[in-house]
């Protein structure tokens, strides 16, 4: 039994035989990815599970193979992600849940998960460095290795599996300050396409920090030093003139 959810056409509870592959579940039962987007990852086993990639799609689903692939059957959750999902943000999302759930008895889970979350937040803010990634990985291994109960022993799984399978995304966040999925607002760069902009001024009027300038009926311009990456201009523009990179 799985709870199939996420960016998939058919969501719901499914009952499947042991040994079925992820591909069969996602593309046959689930009916493929929503809006014809590209499959990126599937997270199984609930918050303590791991994220599996395209390379794992033909893995038969049973307790041992999922564990070997770095995830687990766990609670039977199965969340499908597409190219619009940022894996660093996903790891952070699950870790927030873990930090909330930690009872506080043992040190690694009580303080360690909080510290991992802080590193992820730092990376998402575009302030991370490569040392942070090493530190994150070490913390994850130690928390897994030393925690008192199952929660702490599995809590680093989202971090470890994304570090393992999507390391280039972490590196892009840290080195290039880029989020492939354009989910990390702090890393997004908003510009105006002068060919499309009509100079309607709606973006400039809605910008909370007055970062947008330009004459009426002339293409507008975003001052990157003032911009706080809030995305209001992107939402307000009626002509799709705002480019997010």
């Amino acid at each position: 039994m799985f709870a199939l959810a996420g960016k998939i056409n058919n969501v719901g509870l499914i009952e499947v035989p042991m040994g079925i592959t992820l591909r069969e579940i996602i593309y046959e039962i689930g009916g493929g990815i929503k809006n014809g987007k590209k499959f990126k990852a599937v997270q199984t086993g609930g918050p303590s599970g791991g994220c599996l990639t395209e390379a794992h799609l033909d893995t038969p689903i049973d307790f041992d193979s999922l564990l070997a692939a770095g995830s687990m059957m766990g609670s039977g959750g199965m969340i499908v992600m597409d190219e619009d999902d940022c894996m660093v943000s996903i790891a952070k999302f699950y870790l927030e849940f873990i930090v909330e759930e930690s009872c506080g008895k043992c040190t690694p889970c009580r303080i360690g998960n909080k510290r991992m979350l802080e590193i992820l937040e730092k990376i998402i803010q575009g302030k991370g460095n490569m040392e942070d990634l090493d530190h994150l990985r070490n913390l994850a291994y130690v928390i897994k290795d030393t925690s008192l109960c199952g929660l702490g022993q599995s809590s680093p799984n989202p971090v470890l599996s994304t570090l393992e399978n999507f390391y280039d995304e972490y590196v892009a966040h840290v080195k290039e300050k880029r989020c492939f999925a354009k989910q990390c607002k702090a890393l997004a760069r908003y510009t105006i396409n002068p060919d499309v902009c009509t100079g309607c001024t709606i973006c400039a009027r809605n910008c909370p920090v007055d970062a947008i300038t330009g004459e009426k009926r002339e293409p507008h311009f975003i001052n990157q030093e003032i911009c706080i990456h809030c995305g209001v201009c992107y939402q307000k523009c009626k002509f799709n003139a705002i480019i997010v990179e």
Partner: protein
Amino acid sequence: METVKLTIDNRHVEVPKGTTILQAAHQAGINIPSLCYMNLPHLAQEHKPGSCRVCVVEIPGRKNLVPACATECTDGITVLSHSLRAINARRTVVELLLSDHPKDCLICPSSGNCELQKLSITMGIREINSVENAAMSTYRKDASPALNRNMDKCVMCRSCETVCNEIQTVGALSAVNRGFMSVVAPAFEQELTDSPCTFCGQCVAVCPTGALTAVDNTFHVIRALADSNKFVVVQTAPAVRAALGEEFGYPPGTSVTGKMVAALRSLGFDKVFDTDFAADLTIMEEGTELLDRITRFLNGDKNVRLPILTSCCPAWVNFFETNYPDMLDVPSTARSPQQMFGAIAKTYMAEKLGVKREDMVVVSVMPCLAKKYECQRDEFKVDGNPDVDYAITTRELAHLIKIGNIDFKTLKEEDFDRPMGESSGAGVIFGVTGGVIEAATRTAYELFTGKKLEKVDFHELRGMEGIRTASVNFDGTYIHIGIAHTLGNARKLLDGIRKGMYNFHAIEIMACPGGCIGGGGQPLHRGNSIVLKARMDAIYKEDFNKTIRKSHENPEIIQLYEEFLGKPLSEKSHKLLHTHYFSHPKQ
């Protein structure tokens, strides 16, 4: 005995089945560091929550590292206490603890005495890997009259909780909140003063960091000493002299009475007196009260409440006021020696010396934290002026001596000032469990039988068992005596009395393990029972070496009654030396 064989760091070890890896390693000379583990063998209490994860070791073949303190040895296993994996994990765990710990070691009251600091030193930690401005778990500071809580420094070892709940059964502390904000606190995070806390200070004695510390009155005392308008007298409790030496490098059990007196005089106290004198006075009052109740009971008076309970221990007084409000008429009304001393010093002695009450400052040196609370109780004040102004602990006295630039070891021994400096051996043994009741028995025997007591040492009343009972032959009449130390044992006795299970005539209760020698204000022994035993032996030796062994033979006590009080339980005695108790049940 069934044994298991294992290898720890390439050493072959054979240990009895059930031994933990930590114990086995220790026997093999391998010191695996630990933090939350606490062993109190004299109280049969082993605290091993396995929560700090500092003692983790590697057992090849097992999925995860295991905590050495909570993992039993099994046959044939290999344990690696310093593999790269174990060292890295241990170090990371300590770094995590440090990342959520204030870095004010230089001015922390526990600096030099802190287990976390020691771990950091041993592991050579030079930097803490955590993000800038990493969140810290911070909590409201809690200051009580006796002890301070700064839970920012709590490492969640929860030793205090075990002591408070399992040994003392006070139940003032437990873990509250969840996750990162979890902390040990009174229920609803209320203040200690509003909790059932008795201020026994045993939590302070076991806290590995600066989270629980004693209130420090050192500078109040220094200011009083520097004030030329103040006449500062000091009294020292029996248990202090048996432990103070430890702070200056003497082995446990070294009695340093003479040097302590010399140091106090050198510090500038105008008079150096002895609480032991007041202990003798306590015996006169309490012993007489005991005898009075027993005699009335034996004569068939139905209104007499027996057993009589001792009332020297302020933590114990707080305990029964909170937990046994229906039995407030059972304990002796006699004040504790500290308060008797203060009352006599500020009346009889002040008059004798020609010092006004308000100009006299009475400082007491106690092995105890609850004494700090006791001397602030309203019933021990006259027009707002307390009988005892400041109570400082043995540790604070050691600190005071160090601040005073006194080389303790080279001091020549000196004697107490008189009067109020002479004491009997009975006064000395107040410092150990069973001592008060033995002292009372020595006096009560002679008063009851009218005969001279030949055998002064009552070995049946001595020892370290939590609850002891004995029947003493008072010339044909057997007096049944119960003794308990630690409040958990006191609760057992009291619950038994409530149910009518016992027929004791008298019961002595001390809140701390071993009596005052194991008090919360003593040099920290971290549960080492050998230290406690040595202090106990030192006290009994001092008693044995005294020429006067019975309180009522102390000439200064006799003089005090002749010149001032009249007789025990006189009106003046009642006013100055007795008290009453208040019911304050708390949740």
